[in-house]
C-alpha cells in the first residue's frame, strides 16, 4: 500500500468516524467492550406508503423535487432490509451499571415537514434539541406515558430543549399541524441502542461482558428479541427479520 493508500484509508476512517458521530449525535462513544451488530431483513411484499399531500405547506413541498414525499411507517431499503428499527439492550446489564454522562444533546430536526431522524434513542436526562428548520408552524407533542407528555409550539426557525426522566420504549412524537409527521424516541438508562438505517444494519458498541436480551422494535411490525452473549471486545452478530403483514 502506497502513501496515497494510507491517506485514503485514514481519510476513509475519519469519514466513517465522522459519519458514526453524525449518526449518533450526543451519545458518548464507548471505550472498548463488546459489540453486537446485525441486519434487519424484510420479507414479503413491500407495502406501498401513502403519498403526503403538502400543498398546504409550499415551503415543505418545494423540498421534494425528485419524488413526492410518502409516509414513513414502513421504509424498506433498496437491499431488501428494513429501516427505522430500534434495536436496544432490553436487559442483561449489571445492576451496578452506570451510564456515562451524555456528551451533548440529541437533535431532532423538522425539515421538509418530516422528522429527522424518524426513529432514534436518547439517554435519560440527555437534552433533546428540537429544531425547526422549516420556519413554518410546527407543534411538537411527546406522548409518553412513563415520561410526562409535552406539547410546544414552534412557529419559526428555532430550537427548544426538553429532557426525559424515565426509560420508555418508545415515546411517540407528533405534529398536529401536519398529521403525517411522526417520530419515535427510545429513552434508555444506557447508551446501548441503535436504529437500522438505509442499509438495514445496526451496531451496539462498548458492551460490558455479559448475556443480553436485545429487542428490535418497529412501529408497525412490533418487537422481536434475541439473546446474545459477548465477552471481551468480540463482535457478535444478531440478525432480525420482519415479515410483511
Amino acid at each position, binding site marked *: 500500500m502506497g502513501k496515497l493508500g494510507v491517506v485514503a484509508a485514514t481519510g476513509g476512517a475519519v469519514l466513517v468516524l465522522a459519519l458514526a458521530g453524525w449518526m449518533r449525535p450526543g451519545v458518548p462513544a464507548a471505550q472498548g467492550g463488546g459489540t453486537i451488530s446485525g441486519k434487519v431483513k424484510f420479507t414479503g411484499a413491500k407495502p406501498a406508503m401513502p403519498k403526503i399531500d403538502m400543498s398546504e405547506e409550499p415551503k415543505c413541498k418545494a423540498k421534494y423535487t425528485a419524488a413526492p414525499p410518502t409516509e414513513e411507517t414502513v421504509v424498506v431499503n433498496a437491499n431488501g432490509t428494513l429501516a427505522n428499527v430500534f434495536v436496544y439492550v432490553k436487559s442483561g446489564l449489571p445492576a451496578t451499571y452506570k451510564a456515562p454522562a451524555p456528551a451533548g444533546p440529541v437533535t431532532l430536526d423538522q425539515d421538509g415537514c418530516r422528522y429527522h431522524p424518524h426513529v432514534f434513542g436518547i439517554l435519560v436526562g440527555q437534552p433533546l434539541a428540537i429544531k425547526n428548520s422549516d420556519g413554518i408552524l410546527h407543534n411538537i407533542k411527546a406522548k409518553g406515558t412513563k415520561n410526562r*407528555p*409535552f406539547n*410546544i*409550539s414552534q412557529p419559526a426557525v428555532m430550537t427548544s430543549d426538553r429532557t426525559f426522566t424515565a426509560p420508555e420504549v418508545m415515546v411517540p412524537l407528533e405534529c398536529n399541524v401536519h*398529521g403525517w409527521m411522526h417520530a419515535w424516541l427510545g429513552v434508555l438508562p444506557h447508551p446501548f441502542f441503535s436504529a437500522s438505517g438505509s442499509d438495514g444494519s445496526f451496531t451496539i458498541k462498548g458492551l460490558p461482558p455479559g448475556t443480553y436480551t436485545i429487542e428490535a422494535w418497529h412501529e408497525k411490525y412490533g418487537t422481536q428479541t434475541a439473546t446474545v452473549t459477548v465477552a471481551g471486545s468480540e463482535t457478535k452478530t444478531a440478525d432480525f427479520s420482519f415479515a410483511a403483514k
Partner: protein
Amino acid sequence: MISALLLLALRAAPVPIPDSPFPLQDTTKGKAVYVKWCAGCHGDSGAGDGLAAAHMLPRPRNFTGAVYKIRTTASGQLPTDADLMRAIDDGLPGSAMPAWKGRLSDAERRDVAAYIKTFSSFFADTSQHVAALTFSSEPSGGTGANALKTGRQFYDSIGCRKCHGDQGRGDGPSAPTLKDDAGFPIFAADLHQSWRFRGGGSTGDIYHRLRTGLDGTPMPSFSDLIDQKFLTDEQLWRLAQYVRSLSPPEPPEVQDVIHAPQIAGPVPASPDDSVWGRVGRYWFPLVGQVIRKSRWFAPAVSGVWVQALHDGRTLALRVSWDDRTQSPDSAWLGFEQRVLETVAGDDSGPPSPKAQPWPDQLAVQFPRHLPESPAAMERPYFLMGSETDPVYQWRWTSTPRRSVAGLARGIERFDTLPGVVAGQARFDHGEWRLVFTRALATPDTANEVQLEAGRAIPVAFFAWDGSSGEHGSRMAVSTWYFLALDRPTPPGVFISPVLAMLVTLGLGLVVVRRAQGGRRGTVRAGRQR
C-alpha cells in the same frame, strides 16, 4: 413490619400540598364520592371509561395518565391542586362535565380531588415539580383597535389559523386531522363561542391556555416563544384579547321570544343585507336528539342565532350558526368516520353507520295553526310532531341547495307541501347565514301556519352538520320558543305614557292634599279633646 406500617400510614395520610389554598382531604371518603358521582362517566378505575363514556365527545378524562387540559402549570407538568379544584368546582364548559360547587360540599369536593390523584403514580412521585407559572396581569387597552390589530398579526404569524381557521371558527386546514392523545377526534375550538371554552372564556383564561397549552390535545404551549423572544408577553396578551374579541362580550342569554320588528319593506331576502345589522339577534341552544333511535349524543351545532322582521306582508327569518364545514366536504370524510366510530348511538341499536357525504341541514318548525285562544298553550310534540298532530316545517339543505316547506309527522316522515318558502344561504369561514322568507298569510290555512302580528307563534329549530355524520335522527334540536311579529307602533304608544304620567301626578297631588288635610283635622280634634 415497622416500615410496612409506616408505608400504610403514609398512604392513608392526607396528600400533603405545600402551597395550595385548598388542602385536599381524605381519599377514603373521596372514593365514596367518586363511586357515587363520577364513576358513571370516568369509570371505576379512573380510565375515563364509565358506562356513559362511549356516548360522549369529548370523552371523560382518563385520570390514569395524569394528563390534564386545564392547568396553570407548564406543558407536561402535573396540575396544581387548585387546578383540579377549579375543574371540579366550575366544570368544563362545552363538555358534559358539570360544575359540582353547590352539588357537593366543600369537603366532598376536596376529598374526591384527593382520590382522583391516586389514579396516577405521577402524583406520588416527589420528583415531579408542580408549580403554577407566573402570569403577568393583563395590559390595558385590550379592546382598542391597535391592540386587536397586534393580536390579529400574531394570530396569523404563529399559525393559529392552521387549526382554528382564518376567522376562528375551528375550520383551519389541519382541523379535519386532529385527534387527542387517545386517538379520538377532537375539534379545534370555535373561538366565537368563548362561553364554551373548557378553561373559561375570559381574556385571562385565554392567555393562560396560550401559556400552558391544553395537554392531551393538539393545542400546544406558547411559553417557549416568550423565552426565545419570538414575541413579548404583552403581545401574547394582545393575541388573547383578539381571540376574546371574537365572541360576544357576555355569554348569550336565552330569551323565549324572538321579536320581529315591522319595517317599511320589502324585507331583505339576502343573508348579508345591511338591515340585519340593525335587528336584534336571539340565541337558542341546541342539544343532541337523544329521545328517538338512532340517538345522537354529540351534536356539532351548539346553537343558532335568530333574527326576524316583517313588512306586514312577508316575514324574513335569518338563522346563522357556526359549522366548520360546508358539507359535504371530502377533506372531512375521515373525521366524520372517526366521529361515528367514537360516539356510540344506542346500546342495542345498529352499528355505527359508514361516513357519507351528507349535506348540512336546518329546519324551522311551527305548529300548523296557532291556538284558538291566545292564552292557550297547547303545542304539537316538539320533536317534529306526531302522526296525528303534525308540525309545519321549513327545511333547508346545503347540497342540493334548496328550501322546502312541508309537514313532519315525527322524525321519520316529512311530506312536502306545494306552498313556497324561499331560502338564501351563504357559507362564510365556518358560519352559515340563511334567510327564509314567506308570506305572512297563505292560501293553505289548514297546513301552513298563518303568521299573525301580535300573536305568540311557537317556533323550534333543528340543525345537522353532515361532516359530523349528522343525518336523519342524528341531529341537534331545540325546544319550543316563540316568534312575535311586532305591530307598527301606534302614535298612542308615545302619547299615553305622558298622559299616564300627568294623571298619576294629578292623582298623587290629590291624595297628598287629602292626607295632609286629614292629619290636620285629627290634630285639631285632639286639641279639642
